[in-house]
């Protein structure tokens, strides 16, 4: 029987999922589905398209040489095609990944050479780039730093870009050296322009949050979903199908919003989620099933039988995290590595566990239970959980395997609650505490959000940063949140206990000794320390903020995270160096922390 429209649609979604071994296989899979089944690909206008088009002003002919970079699957080639269409009004016809076009502008004709498949374009001889290719790059360099009316667009993965430069012969012209160094420098530092004729667009700069938003829209808002109503006679589109349940769950505002928040977390921890990864995530969240042959349901017989057999095994809070996939498959993909780094559901609070275990049995907990645990409109909860819970309460779970199995189920429940909780519930039930980032809400809502909106961040959170810095940088339990104490050990600046006072920065002075600020287009806030005319700043990633909050609460810096502690020690070294902090030459001032946590300074006088 030929596939129904709905099944064709599912086949398309599946082609984006974690079923292909590599990029080429995925491209082939997509081609087959789109060509044979006639379902248009998932698409959206890339946020970078505007930046690209702005580099080619048809009005004054002031073109730029552009290097379009990013990870594989970000849509570089599509953007090049769209540029050709925009500039010439005709579809691209490039061969071997290269295309030459002539563009009429009001200032005269301009030649543009686009290289959108570097692997197909470049040729190597004896491990080095061929002379023709070197020549082309040299012409690009001449255009970038000169006045030629020939321009170049080079679309290249960031890894490939380095490979390309590594393959240059040992001796290259100074201008090509300049191009190479400029591009590597721009890429590493996140800069966009080198002069007026060389521009870099790194697609990884597009926030993951925006990518997630576009991808969710591109999948969930396609008209093809009407198949659920139109083809409900097929088991796969019935209400007991895991796919339908997952679609409904994913479409609910809370879950959609949560996915955006998670993408935001990726942005503020420095883990970019590329388009291909996000689509893979969404595809698997919808179609994943541990009992399917490839662990992702294939429309047809398989989907019709398996999707309704035990849909709870494929509930969204399982498939979203890739639970249905093999460990090796998950590990291969950055996006799952990112999610597993969050440890969602693996940490907890007593309050939440009380609700999970006793919520349905304890009257006092009943209200909260019905608000946060009980609601399960799309039947995502494992029906076996309740019997398991009964067994646990009776004390019948004793064997190690059973205990581990039970703990897994509880963690899974926490993930279910986490995904569908509203932002109010996240705050009320401290649900970020079920993840590795206990202070994510404070970071996102009270620091980052006001900064993004041009307002000052919440003062309590800034003070928290100060408290964390004091704790880490002095190694002592200072209570002070209104000053940052700069101190050193007698031996090293980074001594675990640094109690020789050097200077203090007041949060309330004018200008403030410590501020959390937004810089340019960076989505991560900066901590700015000021002393006199000197400044020192560092990016306050969520990871760093979390560390500061935890130590401010009393965790031992080096035992909470050795790496973060080392990171902050290096920051301290740089801060003392760059702020040009010098202690008094008249006395050494020993910091004494009193039982109240207040600071007292004891001087030891030095000879005149």
């Amino acid at each position, binding site marked *: 029987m030929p596939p129904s429209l709905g099944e064709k649609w599912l086949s398309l979604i599946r082609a984006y999922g974690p079923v292909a071994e590599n990029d080429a296989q995925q491209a082939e899979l997509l081609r087959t589905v789109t060509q044979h089944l006639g379902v248009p690909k998932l698409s959206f206008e890339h946020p970078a398209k505007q930046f690209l088009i702005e580099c080619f002003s048809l009005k004054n002919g002031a073109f730029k040489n552009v290097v379009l970079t990013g990870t594989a699957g970000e849509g570089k080639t599509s953007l090049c095609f769209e540029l050709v269409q925009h500039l010439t009004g005709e579809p691209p016809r490039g061969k071997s990944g290269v295309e030459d076009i002539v563009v009429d502008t009001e200032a005269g004709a301009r030649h543009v050479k686009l290289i959108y498949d570097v692997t197909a374009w470049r040729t190597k001889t004896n491990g080095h780039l061929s002379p023709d290719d070197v020549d082309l790059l040299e012409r690009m360099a001449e255009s970038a730093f000169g006045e030629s009316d020939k321009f170049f667009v080079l679309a290249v993965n960031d890894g490939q870009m380095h490979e390309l430069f*590594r393959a240059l012969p040992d001796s290259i012209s100074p201008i090509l050296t300049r191009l190479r160094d400029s591009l590597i420098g721009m890429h590493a530092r996140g800069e966009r322009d080198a002069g007026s004729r060389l521009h870099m667009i790194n697609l990884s700069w597009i926030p993951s949050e925006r990518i997630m938003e576009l991808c969710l829209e591109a999948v969930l808002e396609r008209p093809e979903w009407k198949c659920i109503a139109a083809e409900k006679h097929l088991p796969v589109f019935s209400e007991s199908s895991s796919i339908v349940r997952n679609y409904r769950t994913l479409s609910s505002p809370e879950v959609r919003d949560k996915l955006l928040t998670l993408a935001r977390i990726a942005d503020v921890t420095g883990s970019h989620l*590329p388009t291909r990864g996000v689509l893979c995530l969404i595809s698997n969240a919808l179609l994943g099933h541990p009992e399917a042959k490839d662990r992702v349901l294939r429309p047809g017989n398989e989907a019709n039988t398996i999707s309704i057999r035990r849909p709870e095994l494929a509930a969204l809070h399982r498939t979203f995290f890739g639970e249905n996939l093999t460990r090796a498959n998950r590990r291969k993909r950055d996006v799952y590595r990112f999610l597993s780094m969050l440890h969602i559901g693996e940490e907890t609070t007593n309050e939440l566990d009380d609700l999970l275990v006793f919520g349905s049995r304890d009257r006092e907990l009943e209200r909260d239970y019905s608000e946060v645990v009980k609601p399960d409109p799309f039947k995502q909860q494992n029906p076996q959980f309740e019997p398991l819970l009964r067994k646990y309460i009776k004390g019948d779970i004793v064997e190690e395997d059973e205990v581990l199995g039970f703990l897994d189920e509880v963690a899974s429940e926490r993930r279910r609650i986490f995904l569908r909780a509203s932002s109010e519930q996240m705050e009320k039930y401290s649900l970020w505490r079920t993840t590795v980032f206990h202070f994510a809400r404070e970071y996102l809502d009270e620091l980052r959000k006001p900064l993004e909106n041009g307002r000052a961040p919440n003062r309590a959170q800034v003070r928290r940063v100060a408290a964390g810095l004091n704790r880490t940088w002095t190694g002592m339990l200072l209570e002070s949140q209104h000053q940052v104490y700069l101190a050193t050990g*007698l*031996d*090293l600046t980074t001594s675990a206990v640094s109690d020789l006072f050097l200077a203090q920065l007041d949060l309330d002075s004018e200008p403030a000794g410590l501020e959390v600020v937004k810089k340019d287009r960076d989505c991560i806030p900066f901590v700015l320390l000021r002393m006199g005319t000197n400044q020192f700043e560092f990016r306050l990633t969520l990871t760093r903020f979390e560390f500061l909050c935890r130590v401010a609460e009393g965790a031992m810096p080096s035992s909470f995270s050795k*790496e973060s502690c080392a990171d902050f020690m290096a920051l301290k*070294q740089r801060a003392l160096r760059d702020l040009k*902090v010098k202690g008094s030459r008249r006395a050494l001032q020993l910091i004494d922390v009193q039982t109240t946590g207040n600071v007292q300074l004891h001087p030891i006088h030095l000879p005149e």
Partner: protein
Amino acid sequence: MITAPENREEYSGSKDRHEAWIEEAIWGHRLERQPYSALCLELLGMAEGLHRQGKLLTPTVPSNTPQYHPHRCLQLRNILFNNSRLEEILNKTRGSDDDGWKQWLEVMKETSSLGSGGSNDFSYIKQRFDSFEEFVAMVRLLRRITLDQGSERTWTLQFLFPIGPAALYEAIREKGDGFERTRGVFTRTGEIAYLMLSRCSEGTRARIRTALEKWFDPATLRNGLLLRLLKEWQQDANGEAKGGTYLPYKAHPAYERMGSDVAAILELNLPDQDAYQYLQPLVGFHVYLYAVETANAWAKDDHRIPPIVCEILAPKSDLVRKAAVKSYLDNDALGSLAVQTYVEQRTLKDTALCQRLSDERLDETARKQFLIEHVSKTFAMKQPDLEERMRDAVDVKELYQRLFNIAERFYRSGASDGIVSLGTGCGLISKRGTTRFRYAPTDELLRALVLANVRGTEEETVFLRKLHQRYRIIIGPAEAKRELQGYDFDDADFKKNRERLAQHLLGMGLAQRMSDACTYIHNPMFVET
């Protein structure tokens, strides 16, 4: 060529006090186990001594080792480490400053140890502090920077973090009424490290000299804390000169390699002596590399560092760990082989000796006697001892065998142990997570390598290639594929190893990940000068 005769010079000092001179001829006099903290301290002590003579990092040659006069700083050491009743006196006399001083000065008169001619009068201290309590606070503060706290070494072998030149003094032991120099803590390995630096290029030496001169400035605030406890510091270094350390090679790739890394760290312009924490692992690492590179040159006539496969601590055993264990064992074995080769070269392959031994006019006893005399002279072994050890050897062949065994034994208890302790001390070699030694660098060593090698930002591949080119360190698949046999190499395992490195460096703020195909290694301390 490291081992070429024209690149070596004989030791000019007396070998009488040595049981043998074999490993010394290969690696120098000498590489021996010492507390790891002593390595850099000994290096700095020598540098400081020569700085006072205006000879800091002037070039040296193997046959003429510079001599210097180390400080003893006895008053300072008595106050800090031979003054156990200080706190008790403070507690008993609280409220009366005069009583405190009086009692303490009396106790010091009785218990301090300053050798013959030294005065037990510490009353100068009283003039220098506002109160007894302030003095005690200062002593407490300085005691906190004692190195290897809890080591239970005697007071004359306690050392301070080098906050200034007055913290650099020699290791001594009490003997009779006075003191004698001991080589138990400063075993000369730190002096070897100094000599390595003194044989770098002029440019590199100048860079290091500029930075170290600041460290040796007695007028800094921190050094002032120490000087306050010393009556006269300048007069303190008039004792017996120290010297006699021997580094056999005029030129060696290890010298410049070490020098440029030390210079790079010193030029980061870190506050006070913060660079010390990065120099500590690096100096040991470079002396270790010198040792294995030299062994490789003698043992295999291969004048490069042998491959060093590094496991970035993995949760479970994989091919990287196996390769790391194997490369460690291979390199460890090079030492014995080097000793054997050296002994062979000076005996079995000595044409004059062989000709003499094949003289048919000599009977077996005469041959044996001739060989014993040759061995005694060549390897500075005492002839009576040697005769005793060789007495019942039946022929020359057995004599050779015994000689190899003796050489091996000396090596195992001397340089071999010293080399391993350098490798473990610097954080290159460890048993973490297993029961066997292998190359598994610590985060501290990795950080020091990043700080020494990366100017600003560098792509991960370039960084890994640099580690390989400079130190023959193998972490990622590209280098592993080039260096390892097929059965030792697994692309996936080495990729994971590289990934773990990136994760560690990310966590320490030393890397920035752009995508799964591109990571930048970042030296946050670097400033363009």
